[in-house]
Protein backbone atom coordinates (compact mmCIF):
# COMPACT_ATOMS: atom_id res chain seq x y z
CA UNK A 1 0.00 0.00 0.00
CA UNK A 2 1.36 3.40 -1.00
CA UNK A 3 0.20 6.12 1.34
CA UNK A 4 0.83 9.83 1.70
CA UNK A 5 0.58 11.95 4.84
CA UNK A 6 -0.25 15.59 4.16
CA UNK A 7 1.53 18.19 6.31
CA UNK A 8 0.58 21.76 7.18
CA UNK A 9 2.34 24.15 9.57
CA UNK A 10 0.96 23.35 13.02
CA UNK A 11 0.21 19.68 12.34
CA UNK A 12 1.76 17.70 15.19
CA UNK A 13 0.43 14.14 15.06
CA UNK A 14 2.05 13.03 11.85
CA UNK A 15 4.73 10.89 13.49
CA UNK A 16 2.20 8.61 15.21
CA UNK A 17 0.30 8.30 11.93
CA UNK A 18 3.45 7.55 9.92
CA UNK A 19 4.42 4.91 12.47
CA UNK A 20 0.99 3.23 12.34
CA UNK A 21 1.02 3.21 8.52
CA UNK A 22 4.54 1.79 8.50
CA UNK A 23 3.48 -0.96 10.93
CA UNK A 24 0.70 -2.24 8.69
CA UNK A 25 2.11 -1.58 5.22
CA UNK A 26 5.80 -2.29 5.81
CA UNK A 27 6.83 0.94 4.06
CA UNK A 28 7.15 4.58 4.94
CA UNK A 29 4.36 6.81 3.71
CA UNK A 30 5.29 9.77 1.55
CA UNK A 31 5.04 13.07 3.37
CA UNK A 32 3.66 15.95 1.32
CA UNK A 33 3.98 19.63 2.26
CA UNK A 34 0.90 21.84 1.90
CA UNK A 35 2.44 24.01 -0.84
CA UNK A 36 2.73 21.04 -3.22
CA UNK A 37 0.22 21.06 -6.05
CA UNK A 38 0.32 17.31 -6.68
CA UNK A 39 0.33 14.10 -4.64
CA UNK A 40 2.97 11.45 -5.41
CA UNK A 41 1.82 9.29 -8.32
CA UNK A 42 -0.03 6.10 -7.53
CA UNK A 43 -0.91 6.65 -3.87
CA UNK A 44 -3.70 4.41 -2.58
CA UNK A 45 -4.38 6.33 0.61
CA UNK A 46 -4.03 9.96 1.62
CA UNK A 47 -4.04 10.72 5.35
CA UNK A 48 -4.51 14.15 6.89
CA UNK A 49 -3.31 13.84 10.47
CA UNK A 50 -4.17 15.80 13.58
CA UNK A 51 -2.76 18.98 15.06
CA UNK A 52 -3.52 22.65 14.78
CA UNK A 53 -2.92 23.61 11.16
CA UNK A 54 -2.20 27.33 10.81
CA UNK A 55 -2.90 27.69 14.53
CA UNK A 56 -6.60 26.90 13.91
CA UNK A 57 -6.91 30.62 13.12
CA UNK A 58 -10.27 31.78 11.73
CA UNK A 59 -11.80 28.27 12.17
CA UNK A 60 -10.19 24.88 12.79
CA UNK A 61 -8.99 23.59 9.42
CA UNK A 62 -10.24 26.61 7.45
CA UNK A 63 -6.92 27.90 6.15
CA UNK A 64 -5.45 24.44 5.50
CA UNK A 65 -8.53 23.60 3.43
CA UNK A 66 -7.66 26.45 1.03
CA UNK A 67 -4.03 25.38 0.46
CA UNK A 68 -2.76 24.01 -2.89
CA UNK A 69 -2.34 20.41 -1.74
CA UNK A 70 -6.03 20.17 -0.86
CA UNK A 71 -6.94 20.79 -4.51
CA UNK A 72 -4.81 17.73 -5.32
CA UNK A 73 -6.54 15.76 -2.52
CA UNK A 74 -9.94 16.77 -3.98
CA UNK A 75 -8.87 15.51 -7.40
CA UNK A 76 -7.54 12.26 -5.91
CA UNK A 77 -10.79 11.72 -3.99
CA UNK A 78 -12.62 12.31 -7.27
CA UNK A 79 -10.62 9.46 -8.82
CA UNK A 80 -11.60 7.16 -5.94
CA UNK A 81 -8.35 7.35 -3.94
CA UNK A 82 -9.03 6.64 -0.26
CA UNK A 83 -8.75 9.64 2.07
CA UNK A 84 -8.67 9.55 5.87
CA UNK A 85 -8.75 12.67 8.03
CA UNK A 86 -8.17 12.35 11.77
CA UNK A 87 -9.01 15.15 14.22
CA UNK A 88 -7.72 18.33 12.54
CA UNK A 89 -7.76 16.22 9.37
CA UNK A 90 -11.52 15.69 9.81
CA UNK A 91 -11.99 19.43 10.33
CA UNK A 92 -9.99 20.12 7.16
CA UNK A 93 -12.11 17.63 5.17
CA UNK A 94 -15.36 19.32 6.26
CA UNK A 95 -13.91 22.76 5.48
CA UNK A 96 -12.94 21.40 2.04
CA UNK A 97 -16.53 20.08 1.65
CA UNK A 98 -15.23 16.58 0.93
CA UNK A 99 -17.36 15.68 3.96
CA UNK A 100 -20.60 17.36 5.09
CA UNK A 101 -21.24 19.20 8.35
CA UNK A 102 -18.86 21.12 10.57
CA UNK A 103 -16.84 20.56 13.74
CA UNK A 104 -17.69 23.21 16.28
CA UNK A 105 -16.30 24.18 19.69
CA UNK A 106 -16.79 21.38 22.26
CA UNK A 107 -20.06 21.84 24.13
CA UNK A 108 -18.16 21.90 27.44
CA UNK A 109 -15.81 24.56 25.98
CA UNK A 110 -12.78 22.65 27.26
CA UNK A 111 -10.05 20.86 25.36
CA UNK A 112 -10.69 17.15 25.98
CA UNK A 113 -7.87 14.61 26.18
CA UNK A 114 -9.01 11.17 27.29
CA UNK A 115 -9.89 7.67 26.08
CA UNK A 116 -13.44 7.21 24.84
CA UNK A 117 -15.46 4.17 23.75
CA UNK A 118 -15.53 4.16 19.96
CA UNK A 119 -18.40 2.14 18.53
CA UNK A 120 -18.31 0.85 14.96
CA UNK A 121 -21.60 1.76 13.28
CA UNK A 122 -20.73 0.76 9.72
CA UNK A 123 -18.36 -2.19 9.23
CA UNK A 124 -18.63 -2.00 5.47
CA UNK A 125 -16.06 0.75 4.89
CA UNK A 126 -12.39 0.68 3.88
CA UNK A 127 -11.45 1.50 7.47
CA UNK A 128 -13.73 -0.90 9.34
CA UNK A 129 -14.17 -4.03 7.23
CA UNK A 130 -12.11 -6.16 9.65
CA UNK A 131 -14.48 -5.20 12.45
CA UNK A 132 -18.16 -5.83 13.12
CA UNK A 133 -21.00 -3.41 13.63
CA UNK A 134 -21.38 -2.77 17.34
CA UNK A 135 -17.72 -3.43 18.19
CA UNK A 136 -16.50 -0.99 20.82
CA UNK A 137 -12.83 0.01 20.86
CA UNK A 138 -11.03 2.20 23.38
CA UNK A 139 -9.62 5.14 21.45
CA UNK A 140 -8.01 8.42 22.54
CA UNK A 141 -9.43 11.84 21.72
CA UNK A 142 -7.58 15.16 22.04
CA UNK A 143 -9.44 18.16 20.65
CA UNK A 144 -11.13 21.47 21.35
CA UNK A 145 -13.42 21.55 18.29
CA UNK A 146 -14.95 18.12 17.83
CA UNK A 147 -18.63 18.92 18.22
CA UNK A 148 -20.10 17.57 14.98
CA UNK A 149 -22.94 19.64 13.58
CA UNK A 150 -25.01 19.22 10.43
CA UNK A 151 -28.43 20.57 9.49
CA UNK A 152 -31.43 18.26 9.97
CA UNK A 153 -31.60 17.20 6.35
CA UNK A 154 -27.88 16.34 6.16
CA UNK A 155 -28.06 14.48 9.46
CA UNK A 156 -31.05 12.47 8.25
CA UNK A 157 -29.17 11.56 5.07
CA UNK A 158 -26.03 10.53 6.95
CA UNK A 159 -28.04 8.32 9.29
CA UNK A 160 -30.32 6.94 6.57
CA UNK A 161 -27.46 6.04 4.25
CA UNK A 162 -25.34 4.38 6.94
CA UNK A 163 -22.70 7.04 6.61
CA UNK A 164 -22.10 7.38 10.33
CA UNK A 165 -19.03 5.14 10.66
CA UNK A 166 -18.29 5.68 14.35
CA UNK A 167 -20.16 6.86 17.43
CA UNK A 168 -19.07 7.64 20.97
CA UNK A 169 -20.59 4.84 23.06
CA UNK A 170 -21.55 4.32 26.70
CA UNK A 171 -21.99 8.00 27.49
CA UNK A 172 -18.43 8.91 26.47
CA UNK A 173 -19.38 11.65 23.98
CA UNK A 174 -16.72 14.21 24.97
CA UNK A 175 -17.86 17.18 22.91
CA UNK A 176 -21.65 17.31 22.42
CA UNK A 177 -21.59 15.90 18.87
CA UNK A 178 -25.04 15.42 17.35
CA UNK A 179 -26.16 11.77 17.62
CA UNK A 180 -22.81 10.99 19.31
CA UNK A 181 -21.18 11.08 15.88
CA UNK A 182 -17.41 10.47 15.99
CA UNK A 183 -16.75 9.71 12.32
CA UNK A 184 -18.50 9.81 8.93
CA UNK A 185 -17.93 8.72 5.33
CA UNK A 186 -18.72 10.44 2.04
CA UNK A 187 -21.40 9.25 -0.37
CA UNK A 188 -18.92 7.49 -2.66
CA UNK A 189 -17.38 5.61 0.27
CA UNK A 190 -13.75 6.66 -0.13
CA UNK A 191 -13.40 9.62 2.26
CA UNK A 192 -13.62 9.16 6.05
CA UNK A 193 -13.19 11.75 8.77
CA UNK A 194 -13.04 10.99 12.49
CA UNK A 195 -12.19 12.97 15.62
CA UNK A 196 -10.60 10.14 17.72
CA UNK A 197 -6.98 9.09 17.12
CA UNK A 198 -6.84 5.38 16.21
CA UNK A 199 -3.11 5.76 15.40
CA UNK A 200 -2.55 6.20 19.13
CA UNK A 201 -4.01 2.82 20.06
CA UNK A 202 -2.05 0.39 17.89
CA UNK A 203 0.66 -1.06 20.14
CA UNK A 204 1.12 -2.15 23.78
CA UNK A 205 2.97 1.03 24.68
CA UNK A 206 -0.26 2.93 23.90
CA UNK A 207 -2.09 0.84 26.47
CA UNK A 208 -3.46 -1.53 23.84
CA UNK A 209 -3.66 -2.21 20.11
CA UNK A 210 -7.44 -2.35 19.71
CA UNK A 211 -7.44 0.13 16.82
CA UNK A 212 -4.88 -1.76 14.73
CA UNK A 213 -7.64 -3.56 12.75
CA UNK A 214 -8.67 -0.18 11.31
CA UNK A 215 -5.29 0.22 9.64
CA UNK A 216 -5.19 -3.46 8.63
CA UNK A 217 -8.60 -2.94 6.99
CA UNK A 218 -7.21 -0.22 4.74
CA UNK A 219 -4.25 -2.38 3.66
CA UNK A 220 -6.60 -5.27 2.89
CA UNK A 221 -9.02 -3.08 0.95
CA UNK A 222 -6.20 -1.57 -1.09
CA UNK A 223 -4.81 -5.04 -1.87
CA UNK A 224 -8.28 -6.19 -2.94
CA UNK A 225 -8.96 -3.23 -5.21
Amino acid at each position, binding site marked *: MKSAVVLFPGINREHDMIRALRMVSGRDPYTVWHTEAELPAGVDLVVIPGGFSFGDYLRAG*AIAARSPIMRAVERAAGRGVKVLGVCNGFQILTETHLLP*GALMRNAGLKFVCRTIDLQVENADTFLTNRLSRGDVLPCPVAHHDGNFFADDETLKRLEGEGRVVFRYANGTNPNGSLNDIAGIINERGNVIGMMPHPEDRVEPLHGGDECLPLFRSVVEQVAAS
Partner: protein
Amino acid sequence: MKAIVKIMLKPGVLDPQGKAIEHALGSLGFSGVGEVRQGKLITLQLDDADAEGARTRVREMCEKLLANTVIEDYEIEIVE
Protein backbone atom coordinates in the same frame (compact mmCIF):
# COMPACT_ATOMS: atom_id res chain seq x y z
CA MET B 1 -12.17 51.97 1.36
CA LYS B 2 -12.82 49.74 4.31
CA ALA B 3 -15.05 46.68 4.66
CA ILE B 4 -16.46 45.36 7.91
CA VAL B 5 -17.57 41.73 7.90
CA LYS B 6 -19.77 40.47 10.71
CA ILE B 7 -19.94 36.70 11.06
CA MET B 8 -22.46 35.00 13.35
CA LEU B 9 -23.52 31.40 13.87
CA LYS B 10 -26.79 30.74 12.05
CA PRO B 11 -29.94 30.87 14.18
CA GLY B 12 -30.57 27.42 15.62
CA VAL B 13 -26.87 26.45 15.72
CA LEU B 14 -25.93 25.93 19.35
CA ASP B 15 -23.35 28.46 20.50
CA PRO B 16 -21.59 27.06 23.59
CA GLN B 17 -19.42 30.18 23.92
CA GLY B 18 -22.48 32.44 23.90
CA LYS B 19 -24.04 30.22 26.58
CA ALA B 20 -20.92 30.47 28.75
CA ILE B 21 -20.96 34.27 28.45
CA GLU B 22 -24.67 34.28 29.37
CA HIS B 23 -23.98 32.20 32.50
CA ALA B 24 -21.07 34.45 33.47
CA LEU B 25 -23.25 37.55 33.12
CA GLY B 26 -25.89 35.89 35.27
CA SER B 27 -23.37 35.08 37.97
CA LEU B 28 -22.24 38.73 37.97
CA GLY B 29 -25.78 39.72 38.83
CA PHE B 30 -26.96 40.92 35.41
CA SER B 31 -30.51 39.63 35.29
CA GLY B 32 -32.86 39.44 32.35
CA VAL B 33 -30.13 38.58 29.81
CA GLY B 34 -30.85 35.83 27.29
CA GLU B 35 -29.90 34.51 23.85
CA VAL B 36 -26.28 35.64 24.10
CA ARG B 37 -24.48 34.84 20.84
CA GLN B 38 -20.82 35.34 20.05
CA GLY B 39 -19.48 36.11 16.59
CA LYS B 40 -16.51 37.54 14.73
CA LEU B 41 -15.81 40.94 13.26
CA ILE B 42 -13.24 41.17 10.47
CA THR B 43 -12.15 44.50 9.01
CA LEU B 44 -10.39 44.83 5.65
CA GLN B 45 -8.71 47.78 3.95
CA LEU B 46 -9.41 47.58 0.21
CA ASP B 47 -7.87 49.27 -2.82
CA ASP B 48 -11.21 49.24 -4.66
CA ALA B 49 -12.52 52.58 -5.93
CA ASP B 50 -16.14 51.56 -6.22
CA ALA B 51 -18.26 50.30 -3.33
CA GLU B 52 -20.30 47.78 -5.31
CA GLY B 53 -17.17 46.16 -6.74
CA ALA B 54 -15.71 45.99 -3.25
CA ARG B 55 -18.88 44.41 -1.89
CA THR B 56 -18.82 41.75 -4.62
CA ARG B 57 -15.21 40.94 -3.86
CA VAL B 58 -15.78 40.72 -0.10
CA ARG B 59 -18.81 38.51 -0.68
CA GLU B 60 -16.55 36.13 -2.64
CA MET B 61 -14.00 36.26 0.22
CA CYS B 62 -16.77 35.33 2.67
CA GLU B 63 -17.97 32.41 0.56
CA LYS B 64 -14.44 31.12 -0.04
CA LEU B 65 -12.80 31.63 3.33
CA LEU B 66 -14.08 34.12 5.89
CA ALA B 67 -17.31 32.30 6.78
CA ASN B 68 -18.25 28.63 6.90
CA THR B 69 -21.71 28.88 5.40
CA VAL B 70 -22.62 25.45 6.78
CA ILE B 71 -22.86 27.02 10.24
CA GLU B 72 -22.36 30.78 9.81
CA ASP B 73 -24.10 33.80 8.27
CA TYR B 74 -22.22 36.93 7.30
CA GLU B 75 -23.03 40.61 6.78
CA ILE B 76 -20.86 43.03 4.83
CA GLU B 77 -20.65 46.74 5.48
CA ILE B 78 -18.64 48.94 3.12
CA VAL B 79 -17.32 52.09 4.77
CA GLU B 80 -16.19 54.84 2.39
